[in-house]
């Protein structure tokens, strides 16, 4: 019973990581460094709260999240693809804009500096167990199928072949008649939508937006992308691993065997180890960051 509870809790916690990491894989596969994941997620969370507040339904919340994600993706796409700005700098700027922007609009719209009022979420009424109630949330299921679906698309469809091609050898893809720019823009918008859904999950699950509620999850998702070597199946495993560590931390909080700060570090330390090549060489898509 403990084991099942642990597993369910891990899956629930993994949802935002899985969604954002799927976005990260796609974004980096089409050649754009996914440093802005944190910002995209947070914008999705804010959009979800706005949508759910005004539309008074969780589905409106999802629409709001997608709209907010699309706005931020447009900025990202225009800066990196049209103006060929440095992607690291743009990613950092996107994160700053969203952190400051959500605070600004939180005060403008809700007249609060810390959180939105309570908004609609996906019910779960009639399900006695709080843990099981989470699984009535469709975003959970979207999260659980997204990475496997992305893996299937990448390796089993012509679209996926093209995406992989523009990530490795855009010139070759272009010479075969692939519209590289259009595919990159499309890929970025899908990636942005996934990351925004990851943020929406947080806001709808907690029935409100709180300032900075993504709390580094975008960076952990990016860590999972690198740790999983840009391959959806491995990335999913990395996300589940990080989520399991977080679940363990929550369960151990009372016991205080290991300081929580050290548990927090796990994904970051693992990423550095992965990057240093100690668990096998990780090679980024060749065209990553070079969208000239």
């Amino acid at each position: 019973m403990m084991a099942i509870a642990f597993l369910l809790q891990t899956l629930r916690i993994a949802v935002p990581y899985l969604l954002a990491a799927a976005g990260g894989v796609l974004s980096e596969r089409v050649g754009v460094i996914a440093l802005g994941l944190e910002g995209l997620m947070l914008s999705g969370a804010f959009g979800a709260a706005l949508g759910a507040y005004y539309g008074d339904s969780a589905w409106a919340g999802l629409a709001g999240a997608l709209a907010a994600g699309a706005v931020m993706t447009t900025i990202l796409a225009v800066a990196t693809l049209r103006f060929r700005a440095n992607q690291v700098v743009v990613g950092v700027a996107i994160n700053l804009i969203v952190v400051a922007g959500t605070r600004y609009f939180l005060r403008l719209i809700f007249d609060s500096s810390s959180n939105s009022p309570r908004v609609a979420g996906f019910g779960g009424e009639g399900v006695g167990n709080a843990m099981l109630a989470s699984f009535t949330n469709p975003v959970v299921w979207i999260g659980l199928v997204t990475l496997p679906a992305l893996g299937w698309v990448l390796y089993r469809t012509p679209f996926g072949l093209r995406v992989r091609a523009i990530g490795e050898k855009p010139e070759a893809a272009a010479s075969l008649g692939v519209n590289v720019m259009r595919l990159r823009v499309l890929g970025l918008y899908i990636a942005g939508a996934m990351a925004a859904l990851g943020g929406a999950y947080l806001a709808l699950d907690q029935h409100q937006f709180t300032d900075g509620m993504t709390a580094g999850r975008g960076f952990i998702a990016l860590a999972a992308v690198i740790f999983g070597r840009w391959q959806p199946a491995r990335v999913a495993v990395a996300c589940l691993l990080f989520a399991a560590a977080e679940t363990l931390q929550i369960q151990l909080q009372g016991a205080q065997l290991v300081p929580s700060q050290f548990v927090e570090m796990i994904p970051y330390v693992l990423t550095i180890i992965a990057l240093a090549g100690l668990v096998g060489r990780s090679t980024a898509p060749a065209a990553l960051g070079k969208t000239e």
Partner: protein
Amino acid sequence: MSGSSTSGASGSASLSATTLRALEAVLPPIVALCIAAVIGDLLILSFGESPAAVYALLIKGTWGNPYGIGQVLYKTTTLTCTGLAFALAGRAGLFNVGAEGQLAAGGFGAALLGLSLPAGMPGLLAVPLCVMAAMLTGAGVGAVPGVLRARFGASEVIVTIMLNFIVLALLNWVVSTHLHLPETLRTPDIHAGTLPRLADWFSVFSGSAANAVLLLALAAAAASWWWLFRTRSGYELRAVGLQPDAAEYGGVHVPRVMWTSMALSGALAGLGGVNFVLGYKGYYEDGFAGGAGFLGIAVALVGRNHPFGIVLSALLFATLSQGGLAVNAIVPKQLTDILTAVVILSVATAVPEVQRQLRAAAASTMAALTRAQQTSGGRAS
């Protein structure tokens, strides 16, 4: 005939090259500020306030009184350090996104040494030791991604971001469990001595946090400039940044340049921590970095990675940051944070665009010159 016309053409070409460089340096920040101003106006209007009133308040609260000026100079100090940190690594072609962690680590290093020095030690000895401790701690944190990049090819962008989280969590753990005053997240007061405040010299600044670390930061900017542009190792660093392969063939030990530049970069960020710990509060407090490390990226970007440009752009961002507090009564202070991010984004997009446009213009000018030369030459013969 042909000789004189060639020298005439190259004369005007070298003139246009100088103008080109000047325009490339000056135009992007101007474009960025204009975009930021427009977006700022829209945001202020969305809050139902008048932009003119908000900007007037911003100026009045920053450069309009000695306390405001002192606070701006205090923030300029930290931002100069983190801006230099980003720029130094940037000149070597590396992205140091880790100034936030290096800044905090530096401040902690200074505090830790300050707390362990004997209480009777004269400040004249203790303070320089603490400054060195800060720079060494920062350098240590900066060297890690440098070494990993040089040795394993690990992306320094990701490693520095991950290290930020690790360092901040580690410091939070040390301070919250071992080194704090009860009910706080700060260390006890350091007895090692403090650096003089600006207010100690000029009483009009009383109350503001500006202190002598400003002079250290300015000296660091001057030293960085001298080192980058007047020494052999500085030249090697820039060579690696421009063309690592060519530098390698030219006899530069590229891996060593990578990790030393990251270590130096970390040392500069660490110096920024002194501003808070020894210059202002006299203790280390968890979370004091507060984004100043990330803001350093913006500072370096607008300052075009040039030490003197960075001092000026640090002044600009410090003004925005302090200005946010000044206008907070009528619009949320995050307004100026958004403007900061907009400036980063616009500079990042304006720089390559302006370069492209200017080069295209220069190329067409050159082509026109050559054509004119050919027709005049043809007529003469």
